[in-house]
């Protein structure tokens, strides 16, 4: 085994090692500091953790694909909110009311379609104008949020459908519906990125775009489909979350893009594209949620979560750089 491939395995394993460290730390620290007398590694607690990871997690998995492809999407939070509004509002439409429970799949379909269309708009703009995805999605983050407000002003949009709530709160084999969606998306995206031509080409484009172009890979459609994918997943995340909560505020989903990117980067995906893994992002998502719960468990203010996650993100970046240094003889530029 070469030195490089060993370094790769260390990189891939790092996030899981970090999760183990978190588990041990919070369990031990919890013994001394815990505000509740429940053990941290309680089974129900862990199940709940997975469920709570789902909304950001599903988005982060999609973000991984987009980032491997060499792009970024800052508009996912707004897409999430708009899809949620479409989901809840469409169920109140007169003709939908007449459909009974058949309204549910239709509302889901409409919400998912909304997400896919918003993603497609981003993708088409990136493809056809050649403007950097960072700027395009920075713009549509504002624009889509504007659409969210336009839909229902500053009022929350609410609709509780008990069939839907029952479905969202159901547990199958011990796992919540949301968890199943998270794991299902992770599995499908993992297959997509490791087994399919589309996935491998996405890596190639992010890794060396010119080489991919010269080899006849059509960059534009890959961009487009991956943006459609992340739009769809942002909507799926909304569908899973709001089926249960039943009420959406126009500011919901703000900063989700930043949380998702944080999880992706913690998972080791390169900002420049071409390198990253779905499984590691899942690790990144779980690590963040674990930190959130763990800090609560040991009685730290929930506020410190932001502080700790921010500093960990920077520390990860620093360590990654130290590991890749060539030593003293490096050019000082």
């Amino acid at each position, binding site marked *: 085994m070469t030195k490089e491939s060993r370094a790769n395995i260390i990189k891939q394993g790092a996030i899981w090692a970090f999760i183990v460290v978190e588990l041990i730390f919070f369990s031990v620290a919890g013994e001394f500091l815990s505000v509740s007398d429940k053990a941290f590694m309680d089974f129900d607690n862990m199940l709940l953790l997975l469920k709570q990871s789902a909304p950001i997690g599903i988005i982060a998995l999609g973000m991984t694909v987009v980032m491997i492809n060499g792009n970024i999407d800052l508009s996912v939070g707004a897409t999430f909110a708009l899809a949620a509004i479409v989901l809840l509002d469409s169920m109140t439409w007169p003709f939908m009311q007449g459909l009974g429970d058949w309204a549910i799949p239709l509302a889901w379909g409409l919400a998912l379609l909304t997400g896919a269309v918003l993603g497609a708009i981003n993708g088409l703009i990136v*493809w056809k104008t050649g403007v950097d995805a960072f700027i395009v999605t*920075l*713009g549509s983050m504002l624009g889509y949020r504007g659409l969210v407000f336009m839909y229902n002003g500053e009022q929350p949009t609410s609709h509780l459908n008990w069939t839907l709530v029952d479905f969202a709160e159901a547990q199958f084999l011990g796992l919540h519906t949301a968890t199943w969606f998270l794991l299902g998306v992770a599995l499908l995206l993992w297959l997509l990125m490791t087994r399919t031509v589309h996935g491998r080409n996405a890596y190639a484009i992010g890794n060396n775009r010119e080489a991919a172009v010269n080899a006849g890979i059509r960059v534009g459609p890959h961009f487009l489909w991956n943006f459609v994918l992340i739009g769809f997943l942002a909507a799926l995340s909304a569908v899973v979350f709001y089926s249960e909560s039943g009420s959406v505020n126009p500011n919901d989903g703000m900063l989700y893009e930043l949380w998702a990117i944080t999880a992706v980067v913690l998972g080791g995906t390169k900002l420049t594209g071409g390198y990253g893994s779905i499984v590691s992002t899942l690790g990144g998502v779980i690590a963040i949620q674990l930190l959130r719960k763990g800090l609560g468990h040991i009685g730290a203010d929930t506020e410190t979560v932001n502080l700790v*996650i*921010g500093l960990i*993100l*920077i520390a990860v970046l620093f360590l990654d750089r130290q590991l890749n240094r060539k030593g003293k003889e490096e050019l000082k530029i």
Partner: protein
Amino acid sequence: MAELTRKGLGGFLARQGILVAFALFMIAFAVANPRFIDIDNIAGVIRSSAILGVMALGVTFVVIGGNLDLSVGSMMSFSTIVVLDLHDKLGPTMAIPAMFAMTMALGAFIGFLVGYLRLNSLIVTLGMLSAIHGLTLTYSGGKNMDIADKQGTWFGIFGQGNIAGIPVPILIFALLAVVLSIVLSRTPFGRKVYAVGGNGTAATFSGIPRARIVFMTYLMSSFCVATAGLMQASRSLGSQNTVGQGLELEVLAAVILGGASLLGGSGTVFKTVIGVLILGFIQNGLLLMGLAFYAQFVVTWIIIILAVWLDIAAKRGRLWSPIA
């Protein structure tokens, strides 16, 4: 249509497009509603853009130096909360310098990470966005911060005062814009910021201390953020912890709208001011037309994409991208 020449109308639009767009906007809004060009209205727009504008001035330096700063929004919340808290504890005279010192210490930390440790600025400032937000919440205990005696303090002058009939926020914005414009365009430091952002390696090979220059751009950015925080705190004399949330992206939008390339090395303070004013006047114009404040989000979206698109289309000489 597919071929834009660099000369003639296309070239002019490419170079001064943002000014032309600005002029067209003003004319269109003015025709639609004469109140739009009322002097009070214009002063009102500039005044309400001043806080965003001051932050955008600092970020302009960071972006020209080839980096990003996503932390300015949460850093502004931090300054606002800190200065309000210290106002009651130390009195306004001590609170202001103390707040500037604390904010600029954060800026120095970011500058150290990006400049000297050469870490990716997007991720560092993303991390700092979160970390500073946490810091603010920890500092305030999650509660809103208010000045106890709102009547008995002169602290409101920075946000509410007038000097010679001109609102102080406008004066601060204008003064900073002029000073920083001169710093950027006329001093050796400004020249070096362009060089470092344009080609950091070549700048290093010319003996320019790249790390120090990048560090300085973040320090300047944090100075501007502290000023904005002071203005915000002074205007409302009380604040939530999240007052600056989301501003980082609006600031970046204004800077990009002004034509600074995210790759670094281009942009000016003047253009950023135009970018800020465009955002402000669009918001105002749409409000006067009876549209809700959120209509500006959609319009801003379209304008940003068009501005950047036409800019790069003029540079490459083709409207549509060559991406297959």
